[in-house]
């Protein structure tokens, strides 16, 4: 995979990796043929990502206005929901739901914070101070940005 800064999806969803599909050859038989893939799929893939980006923006606003804890931002940016987050951190959904509220999040112990930190690949310090970092799939490509 190529490293791109900033990462773009302009050149197709496969990042330049050729994939194979079944296409008809000259004799009318199907054959595996390598190429960049069928182009219209790039459009719908981009549409799905735009939706995710929209959700991230909303989440960012809510974190800024103090309606949710910064955990919500990390959850959204990694395309998770309460169920997934509960599954990965081995906690009940109710607990995770509470942790999304700033009042409870501020009172979290170091062990619980570490669980979230390990999952999102950020330090507990970042979580505590509400620093916003890149999603897991961008780690190493994009430096974290401070929220303030």
């Amino acid at each position: 995979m190529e490293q791109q800064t900033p990462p773009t999806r302009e050149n197709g969803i496969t990042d330049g990796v050729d994939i194979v599909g079944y296409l008809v050859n000259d004799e009318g038989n199907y054959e595996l043929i390598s190429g960049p893939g069928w182009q219209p799929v790039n459009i719908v893939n981009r549409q799905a990502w735009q939706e995710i980006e929209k959700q991230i923006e909303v989440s960012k606003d809510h974190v800024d206005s103090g309606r949710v804890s910064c955990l919500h931002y990390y959850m959204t940016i990694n395309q998770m929901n309460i169920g997934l987050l509960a599954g990965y951190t081995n906690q009940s959904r109710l607990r995770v739901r509470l942790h999304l509220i700033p009042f409870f999040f501020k009172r979290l112990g170091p062990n619980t914070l570490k669980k979230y930190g390990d999952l999102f690949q950020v330090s507990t310090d970042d979580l505590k101070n509400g620093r916003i970092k890149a999603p897991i799939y961008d780690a190493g490509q994009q430096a974290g940005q401070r929220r303030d």
Partner: protein
Amino acid sequence: MPDNRQGSGVIDFPHRQSAHCESGVAANLLTWKGLEITEAMAFGIGSGLFFGYLPFIRLNGLPLVTYRAAPGNILKQLEKISGITMDQKKFRDTNQAMAELDAALEQGIPVGLQTGVFWLPYFPRALRFHFNAHNLVVYGKEGDEYLISDPVFPAPVRCPAKDLARARFASGALAPKGKMYSLRSVPEQLDYNRHIPEAIGSACRMMRSSPFPLIGVKGIRFLAGRLEKWPGRLGRERADLHLGHVVRMQEEIGTGGGGFRYMYVAFLQESGERLQDPVVHDCAALLTEAGDTWRQFGVMAARICKNRAQPDDTYPAMAETIRNCAQLEEKVFQELNHWVKQQGQSKAQVTR
């Protein structure tokens, strides 16, 4: 049986790129074990083709549309073939799962794994969604990195142990739970005269005579009916999102194009040649038409999603296109069903 061990647990595994992960892994493992088979044949004999519109299962809040059988089905079907035996295991503990993987590699056995896509660092960024039914083969370990033959990639890739462990224990729908599998034995040759009609018969049953209205040809018609009403029920923006989702399930990486229809055509063509049977070959042409119609729908949908809709691109027009697909596929599987019955009869006469 090949003895392909090369020094420190790296197996000489023939990587072949394929269109779909599960059939690709199955074909590559079988071929390594000495049973030469193409991906399309593995897909067909594993009864991979399907259709289901299941709105009560949600992916990112959008209804599940599937063009293929449930994940794991291809392997399950192949395992039923006499002579093919497989070891399969699921785990609770990550360390134990990784230790068993290492032990199998030490013995020179390439291991198939079910993993989540989100955690695999070598995957293109745009495809890193929480999808947990990806399949790949691990064929060696060097230091802290596993050597992986991921069938949708052009060449073998590497993955750090930490990430692979995460991917094997991804949470959510279809959680892999560390599932690993390897082949114990394969027959020297497949009895194509028996397995092909059987597999086609099972695909016909799935597509034509499921009692559930959301499955098979009925499911395609159901989707058409729902799709028509999306703009009214969901509003324009949500409707477009739903539409894009259908096209992604149909065409995104791992489908071989046209919602797996083209891959099945390749299987039918190969079957027609192997059995010297013109009927199967003719059905292949008809199913190609169905695949093309699915793509017509895909193009129209993509234009709508991009806000470049032409005057004819409307939801009712797309529903009509999907209904055409249903009609074509109904015809294909009707003919194939007829053919399967004939095969059964002629075989009964021979044994009498």
